[in-house]
């Protein structure tokens, strides 16, 4: 146990401080080369460097490789490779805007290391009722999990700090759940993701100094997804990230097809004091943000705080679910 505690402290520090120290360097580098995008929710022509995914990649991979040196197990290797592949898919989308189907299909291939390394168990665990063995169906679940998580985090990356904030809260909730279930190695691995996203949140929160881009957001989602699979906590992981899942569900149930989010009508518009309010367009999709501002306009910061509170609530539900895993009725 002592070795696990030492490993947890070391890898958490590597994940946090590498991103904390490297991100300002990356911001300067991107600004110097004019690799920036407009922050559409700010008055004036505010340009923000993007993609911050490079910094996130550094933090997650450095900490996970260190963890692998402590515990050389195939599950951690699968996390490292899938995270790098998730980043690669995102950076392609950052450089060149791809069609709506590109990311889901490319991310499905990112699940290959999990299957090839055999870093999964085909039992799907549910709280209170036990588990169900679904060998063939579970393979499909593995292939679907990475695209779903990647796109779920990516589609909630609409306002300053939401993607990194949601990932931070959900990762810590998932790490606590993994410790409750005594899956310590993967729990520590999840801590790496939590501390990496926390360090990035420092620069991504309102007002953002850098955007994660598709590379950062997709990598957050892919890493979260692979941890859920190798840690056998798929249901708990889905619960912890429910606000983002709801956002994707609301979007898909409104649009009724898979499209790149840049292709759809903007569901929000700005008031004179630059608060966000719901659009009058009937065909614009209902998203989580639109639902939050349906009654009255809110500032970007207020909306971010609301989303993070919702994620904290679902994080608590996830931890309760983890406790319920040990109870059978």
């Amino acid at each position, binding site marked *: 146990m002592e070795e696990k505690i030492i490993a947890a402290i070391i890898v958490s520090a590597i994940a946090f401080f590498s991103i904390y120290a490297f991100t300002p360097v990356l911001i300067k580098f991107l600004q110097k080369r004019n690799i920036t995008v407009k922050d559409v929710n700010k008055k004036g022509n505010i340009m923000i460097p993007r993609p911050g995914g490079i910094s996130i990649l550094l933090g997650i991979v450095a900490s996970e490789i260190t963890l692998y040196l402590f515990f050389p197990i195939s599950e951690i290797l699968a996390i490292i490779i899938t995270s790098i592949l998730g980043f690669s898919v995102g950076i392609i989308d950052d450089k060149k805007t791809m069609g709506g189907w590109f990311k889901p299909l490319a991310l499905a291939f990112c699940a290959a290391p999990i299957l090839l390394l055999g870093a999964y168990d085909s039992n799907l665990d*549910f*709280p*209170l*009722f*036990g*588990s*169900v*063995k679904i060998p063939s*169906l579970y393979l499909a679940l593995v292939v679907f999990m990475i695209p779903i998580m990647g796109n779920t985090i990516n589609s909630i990356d609409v306002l300053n700090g939401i993607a990194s904030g949601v990932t931070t809260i959900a990762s810590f909730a998932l790490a606590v759940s993994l410790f409750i279930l005594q899956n310590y190695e993967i729990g520590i691995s999840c801590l790496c993701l939590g501390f990496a996203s926390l360090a990035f949140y420092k620069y991504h929160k309102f007002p953002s100094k850098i955007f994660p881009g598709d590379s950062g957001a997709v990598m957050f989602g892919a890493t979260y997804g692979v941890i859920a699979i190798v840690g056998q906590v798929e*249901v708990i992981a*889905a*619960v912890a990230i*429910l*606000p983002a*899942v*709801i956002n994707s*569900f*609301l979007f898909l*149930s409104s649009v009724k097809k898979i499209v790149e989010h840049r292709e759809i009508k903007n569901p929000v518009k700005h008031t004179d004091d630059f608060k966000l309010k*719901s659009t009058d367009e009937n065909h614009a999709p*209902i998203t*989580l943000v*639109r*639902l*939050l501002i*349906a*009654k009255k306009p809110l500032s970007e910061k207020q909306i971010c705080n*609301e989303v993070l*509170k*919702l994620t904290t*609530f*679902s994080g608590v*539900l996830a931890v309760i*679910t983890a406790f*319920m895993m040990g109870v059978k009725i």
Partner: protein
Amino acid sequence: MAIKIYSFIFVMWILMLIGGGLVIVFVGPFTLSSGIDPIITSSIKVIIALFLIFIWLFTLTKVKNWIFKSQVKS
């Protein structure tokens, strides 16, 4: 407003727990008589699971529409 969205998350959580329970207790152990091809049994299980997912999505869509309409009206 926030209360309704918190309720939405809570309903989604309960539906996940109930859905999982139904799959494990009823759908998982479901078998037809021994002479029937296992592929047919599995196909029936998939159809039942898809039906449960349809009910789940239908319920959530109704809740979503109710929340959004009630917010726009107020």
